């Protein structure tokens, strides 16, 4: 409806004043009343109709603050009643029985009082109808608007029809019309319509228990008051004296109000016994909503558990509650959150027997008299003030990942309602907990990957960036790291113009720790290489330093050799590293050089020195040395077969004459082909030295 502004009330007001003007002239004897009566009535009727939109614009009780609207209504009715008591409507009642113009009004003062009452009561009814409309329209259904409109229209029609009895005062104070039957039929219809509309009391549902009680007591006063008002008005209706249309309108309005608030009161009384249950339902729903909101954005497992327990205890009005989550090994249950558990109870955790009872069948369990149930012993040993308990397993993937409990001191403290509520809770909680765990594990995984990345970068930085250029030999090397960071290492050290130190090694273990040890090793080698011209001496010194610095269960396998390009020989030691392959250029068999030796970090020094054998291998132009780590021979294919030393040796036998770079790529290719799509578990490292 178009918003009605003060301007639009001007017209009806003008019409109304027009009517009054006519009255005054008639009173003053200036005009003849009979002729103008209809005219005047017309003005007033039009004014009324133009004011009808007020009904649709009324704000009282239009929003959910129903009680405020009702309070305003209450004061209005009360005020009107008091006004009625103060003023004396008796003169009007008397005059209702007499006829004749002058007697009708008595005096000018009376006339104005009458007019004021007529105006006031009309406005009163318009406001009432507006308020009632708002109440009726709360939770409106398909026909609500239609039924209300019909009521208003029939009401107006009935009021308008009283124009036919303009000059018969008796009719004004009854429901009769000139045609008796029509009158009764219409009355019947109108009352039915009023009752029909009075069923729309859905707004009662939106009140909480306290508000319902307030209305109950308020209604005890208001309902009788309103009926009294109605009866009083009906018998001495000043508006009817003023104008039959207004009179009937006002009368019917009062009647409707009386019928509506009576029906509403009856409905309210029927609501009272279940009001607290209603409140509980509302509270449960809002708790569920709160829980869903709280946990949808929470990824911290413990906070999730806390929120769940808190809301569960709140909604079931429990004395205590706790949430247990299954640990990695299914036997253990961790108390993730608890409300009102003593420190001792929390320390002890949920007893095995109780956990088993709760989760053996994957559905919620309720015990309302613990001391008479199977829970008696375990519960009394752990928490002795529990007589009612609900346990709801949190189910995911067919097994219980946790369990939610609430408990009360009193027997029969819980009902099916509570069980259903907690089941709904648990379903939400399970989703949230699974999510939280996923997030946690993905964070853990990310951290691990980050650690591996750092270790990998460190490892790469320790390897030589380019091959040393030494006249007489060509060097090539490669280190293909596996997915998990291995510990392979190779390096070169210029000792003097013709001598070069060469090391290839493998730190046991994987990950960041291996990378650190490798860095340490590099430092040691860099420091020792220039000083020691004997590989055995160097390694003994290296072992001594390293042994004290690494854990007992860590060791390093190393091969260190000094290439003397002048004397054309390599002197080397094999401290636990794979053997060195030597392929003479002339096509003879590849030799496996395997001097005795022990890994570094396994022995303090005496045994190490004793076991280490220094080996001297002279070479000629075209000869090729291949240094490798166990990643090459242990490379596995999808069937689990290892590449083995044998294969590597025959490969080397075949391709040793290739220039080092090509030989390298050949080896990598062959091993890659062998491994196929299987994952590599260890670094693949080769160092090739070919005499020019």
């Amino acid at each position, binding site marked *: 409806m178009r918003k009605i502004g003060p301007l639009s009330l001007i017209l009806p007001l003008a019409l109304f004043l027009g009517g009054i003007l006519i009255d005054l002239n008639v009173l003053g004897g200036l005009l003849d009343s009979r002729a103008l009566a209809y005219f005047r009535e017309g003005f007033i009727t039009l004014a009324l109709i133009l004011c009808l939109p007020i009904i649709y614009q009324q704000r009282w009780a239009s929003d959910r603050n129903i009680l405020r609207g009702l309070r305003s209504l209450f004061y209005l009715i009360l005020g009107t009643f008091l006004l009625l008591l103060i003023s004396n409507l008796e003169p009007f009642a008397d005059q209702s029985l007499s006829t004749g113009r002058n007697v009708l009004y008595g005096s000018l003062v009376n006339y104005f009082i009458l007019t004021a009452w007529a105006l006031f009561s009309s406005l009163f009814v318009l406001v009432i109808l507006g308020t009632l409309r708002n109440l009726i329209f709360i939770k409106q259904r398909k026909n609500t608007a239609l039924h209300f409109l019909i009521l208003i229209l029939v009401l107006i029609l009935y009021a308008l029809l009283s124009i036919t009895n303009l000059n018969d005062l008796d009719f004004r104070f009854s429901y009769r019309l000139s045609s008796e039957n029509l009158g009764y039929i219409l009355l019947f219809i109108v009352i039915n319509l009023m009752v029909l509309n009075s069923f729309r009391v859905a707004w009662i549902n939106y009140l909480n228990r306290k508000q319902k009680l307030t209305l109950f007591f308020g209604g005890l006063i208001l309902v009788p008051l309103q009926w009294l008002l109605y009866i009083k008005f009906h018998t001495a209706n000043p508006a009817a004296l003023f104008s039959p249309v207004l009179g009937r309108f006002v009368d019917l309005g009062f009647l409707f109000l009386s019928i509506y608030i009576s029906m509403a009161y009856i409905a309210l009384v029927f609501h009272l016994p279940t009001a607290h249950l209603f409140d509980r339902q509302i509270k449960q729903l809002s708790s569920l909503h709160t829980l869903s909101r709280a946990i949808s954005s929470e990824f911290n497992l413990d906070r999730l558990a806390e929120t769940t327990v808190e809301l569960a205890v709140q909604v079931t009005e429990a004395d205590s509650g706790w949430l247990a989550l299954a640990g990695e090994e299914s036997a253990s249950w961790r108390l993730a959150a608890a409300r009102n558990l003593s420190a001792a109870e929390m320390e002890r955790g949920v007893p095995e027997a109780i956990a088993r009872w709760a989760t053996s069948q994957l559905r919620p369990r309720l015990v309302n008299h613990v001391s008479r149930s199977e829970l008696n012993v375990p519960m009394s040993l752990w928490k002795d003030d529990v007589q009612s308990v609900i346990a709801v397993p949190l189910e995911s993937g067919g097994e219980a990942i946790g369990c939610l409990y609430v408990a009360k001191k009193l027997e029969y403290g819980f009902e099916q309602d509570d069980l259903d509520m907690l089941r709904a809770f648990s379903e939400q909680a399970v989703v949230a907990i699974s999510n939280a765990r996923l997030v946690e594990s993905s964070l853990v995984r990310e951290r691990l990957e980050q650690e591996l990345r750092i270790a990998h970068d460190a490892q790469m930085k320790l390897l030589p960036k380019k091959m040393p250029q030494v006249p007489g030999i060509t060097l090539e090397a490669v280190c293909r790291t596996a997915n998990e960071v291995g510990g392979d290492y190779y390096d070169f050290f210029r000792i003097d113009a013709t001598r070069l130190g060469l090391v290839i090694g493998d730190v046991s273990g994987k990950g960041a720790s291996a990378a650190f040890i490798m860095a340490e090793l590099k430092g040691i080698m860099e420091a020792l290489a220039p000083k020691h011209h004997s590989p055995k001496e160097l390694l003994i010194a290296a072992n001594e330093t390293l042994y004290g610095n690494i854990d007992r269960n860590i060791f390093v396998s190393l091969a260190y050799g000094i290439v003397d390009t002048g004397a054309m020989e390599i002197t080397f030691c094999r401290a636990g590293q794979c053997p060195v392959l030597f392929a003479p250029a002339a096509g003879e068999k590849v030799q496996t050089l*395997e001097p005795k030796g022990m890994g570094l970090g*396994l022995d303090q020094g005496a045994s190490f020195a004793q076991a280490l054998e220094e080996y001297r291998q002279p070479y000629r132009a075209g000869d090729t040395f291949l240094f490798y780590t166990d990643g090459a021979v242990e490379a596995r294919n999808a069937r689990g077969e290892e590449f083995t030393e044998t294969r590597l040796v025959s490969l080397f036998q075949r391709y040793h004459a290739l220039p080092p770079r090509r030989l390298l790529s050949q080896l990598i290719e062959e091993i890659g082909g062998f491994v196929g799509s299987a994952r590599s578990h260890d670094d693949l490292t080769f160092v090739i030295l070919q005499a020019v």
Partner: protein
Amino acid sequence: MENFKIVRLDGTNLTTLKIIGFLDAHTAPTLEEAIQKLLDEEQVNILVDFKDLNYISSAGLGVFMGFIEEIRGKNGDIKMCSMSPKIYRVFDLLGFPTIYQIYERQEEALATFTQKSAPTSNE
């Protein structure tokens, strides 16, 4: 993760651990736990039977290194037997035969234990 299992056999004054399957970084903690348990029970004479072991990595080797000092300190020992040639080669390259007594047959290893000093376990 590959498969790894340990079968423990308690003898008169020694314990035999049969290790079966793959011993790598993932499964090494299992072996660690088993040996630690023996240590806690004061069973310091340990024979490890490698007959059914298919693979050992540096992590697995490290487990033995981690305990040997303590065990020898208590007058016990870890001896090894029945290694496949492949497994023995791994030990050999690293020089482990210098540190550990490795026997081909279980009987040989068992015999050496009976000559050791009395066990400290209460039975």
